[in-house]
């Protein structure tokens, strides 16, 4: 890892509610300037883990260090949290609302005023500043919620499903802002079960399933570990080559061509050479990496 001092360091935490184990012996480290994806199906323990990091609940056993210290109420001011279940004061004006959450994070009133205007403008909400929250559309409310989480410019930002229910335009806008914050050296923990988005913005991931960690590492390493030697093909001819069991173990037909799984010991290079020799007309030949989605499905359903 590039930075030796993790922003969040979790060591062997366990949390259970009665008979139910929400998190079991989980350890992980999150580094500054990176987006850390906390992935997993519903009920895997993501939200419980996050709640322990932000000091809403405490683990039954194990340690959590944030910014190199045991978590204290004072450290909460340096953490921003956007929970999965959204909550806003419906009758409060948008500007007042964001200012209130800033005040709860010890941002001075004067400073908060400037920031509210700046951020509302950035998220294209400025003309809604004096409207009641209940008058906003769902997507706009979500952006207000996001501002509530970042208005105190936290060093650690935790986003639980920040994109659910956003239209593509707003989704891009929010993604841009998140990547900007990352470029500023903030640490971002991003929890989701939408793998397509996680794949685009996460640097590191940790996959949870049934309260336990099943996979972790940088996206690149994870994908490399899951490389299945698959090739996407679109071609005319070459049927005999594809039928060779020494080269190809499986052929899947898609609307847009073929997906070929190479046999053990065969390489893509060798397949390409054979196809050219067989005079097949090749329109597309591409090595495919497994998507995070595939990895997720594989790990979670236990087909690995």
């Amino acid at each position: 890892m590039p930075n030796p001092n993790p922003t969040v360091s979790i060591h062997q935490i366990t949390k259970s509610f009665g008979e139910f184990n929400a998190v079991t012996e989980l350890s992980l480290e999150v580094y500054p300037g990176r987006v850390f994806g906390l992935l997993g199906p519903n009920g895997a323990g993501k939200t419980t883990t996050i709640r322990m990091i932000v000091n809403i609940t405490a683990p039954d056993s194990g340690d959590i260090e944030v910014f190199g210290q045991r978590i204290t109420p004072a450290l909460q001011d340096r953490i921003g949290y956007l929970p999965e279940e959204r909550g806003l004061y419906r009758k409060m004006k948008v500007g007042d609302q964001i200012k209130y959450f800033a005040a709860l994070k010890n941002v001075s009133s004067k400073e908060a005023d400037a920031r509210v205007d700046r951020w509302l403008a950035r998220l294209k909400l400025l003309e809604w500043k004096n409207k009641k929250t209940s008058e906003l559309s769902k997507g706009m409310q979500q952006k207000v919620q996001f501002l509530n989480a970042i208005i105190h410019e936290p060093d650690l930002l935790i986003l639980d499903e920040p994109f659910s229910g956003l239209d593509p335009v707003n989704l891009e806008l929010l993604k841009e802002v998140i990547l900007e914050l990352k470029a500023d050296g903030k640490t971002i923990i991003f929890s989701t079960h939408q793998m397509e988005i996680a794949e685009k913005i996460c640097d590191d991931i940790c996959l949870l399933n049934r309260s336990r960690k099943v996979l972790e590492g940088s996206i690149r390493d994870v994908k490399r570990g899951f490389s299945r030697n698959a090739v996407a093909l679109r071609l005319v001819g070459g049927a005999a080559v594809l039928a060779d069991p020494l080269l190809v173990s499986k052929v899947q037909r898609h609307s847009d061509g073929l997906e070929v799984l190479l046999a053990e010991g065969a390489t893509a290079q060798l397949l390409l050479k054979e196809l050219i020799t067989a005079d097949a007309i090749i329109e597309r030949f591409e090595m495919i990496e497994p998507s995070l989605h595939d990895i997720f499905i594989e790990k979670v359903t236990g087909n690995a």
Partner: protein
Amino acid sequence: MNKLWAVIRREYLQRVRARMFVVMTVLGPVVISLFGVAPAIIFSINAGGPVKIAVVDQTGKLYSGLYNSVIDERGENSSATASVESKAANENQSERFQTMGEQPKEVPELQQVTIGGRSLDEVRAELDRRVRAKELDGYLILPANLLESGDAEFVSRNTGDVFTRRFLARALSRAVSQQRLVEANINVKTVQALSEPVELETTGIGPTERKRDSGEAFALVFGVGFIMYLTILLYGQVILGAVIEEKETRIAEILFSSAKPFTIMLGKLIGVFFVALTQLTIWALAFLAFTLYGVGMLATRGMPVHIPAIPASYFVYFALFFLMGYFIYSTIYALVGSMVTTAQEGGQLAMPIVLVLVIGFYLFLPVSRSPDSQFAFWVSMIPFFAPITMPVRIVAQTPPFWEIALSLLLGFGSIVLLTWLAGRIYRVGMLMSGKRASIPEVIRWVRQA
């Protein structure tokens, strides 16, 4: 501390700026005075105009006494005890109805029916018909031996009209006893002079000063008890609603990631307390302005209003007991709010609290009647009742200072205990979702460190 202040500030400003607050502040006194006078007004409403009663006087000498007695009952001109002797003038008139003029609506209108040679049954039949035809509301038959037997008969269409029946019974008793005196050759005027009722001029003795008092004190006691009850109930419900809102919308989760749950809860309680205090202060100032200017103005227009003198120390006591009552009940409301999932459930679970508060309110009656009894002492020591009963005792008959101090001490001790308890339940309950917390669960939360 900054965070606590931020929570207080938000709760206060959000609510004071709300339209609801303005409406309540303006309408509050109207509602309270309505509650005070409405029962009396409703009771005195006589939907059908004056009740018409026919009187068949077989004694031949009681009608005019009854007539005067009815007039007297109005209490207006007690000197109008028309001489019993003048009845002779009415006595031998032929069959005609005599309608009593110029009576206020509450007083029954009497008509005399003379038998004039018919049998009593004939007269009855005639009167029954007239009652059915709604020309009359009822009739009174005074048998010839009424003076000896003391039994008269009242026939009425509306037997539920207790008011009229009692009124007639009272008036008739008076007329009969006067007639008995006349027949015993005793001068009625002498008897009246001798039996002049005593006016009790009530003077209460406080610990230091003597204060003259004639009824306003009761109004004051009632008013204080009622305002305490209403405000505590009202703002307890506000707390309940606010807590449930934060739980339902999951704002609690963000709040708890920013500040300690206890800070959030305390800030909310204090913020809403200041809202209540603001409202009470506005009402108190309006009352003050009324006593300074309004009373004088009304007096010059011939409407004297008595405002009991309220010592300044009372206001301090009221404020302290309001503070105590508010925090005892609103803490419980906050606790309940954090246990439930919807406002509806909250309402159900809060019912017992309201009930306790209502009992406290009704205790004002026995307590104001005998404020120095053992009973009054004990109920003003119980923290749930003290916020209403102790101020009532203070107004009615100020107890020794140590009792007030003890009551306050017990109350504020309970607040510390309740806030501690509520804080522990609130912390866990606010993050729960899906179902109402059960009592064993809640007990476990409290035990957990």
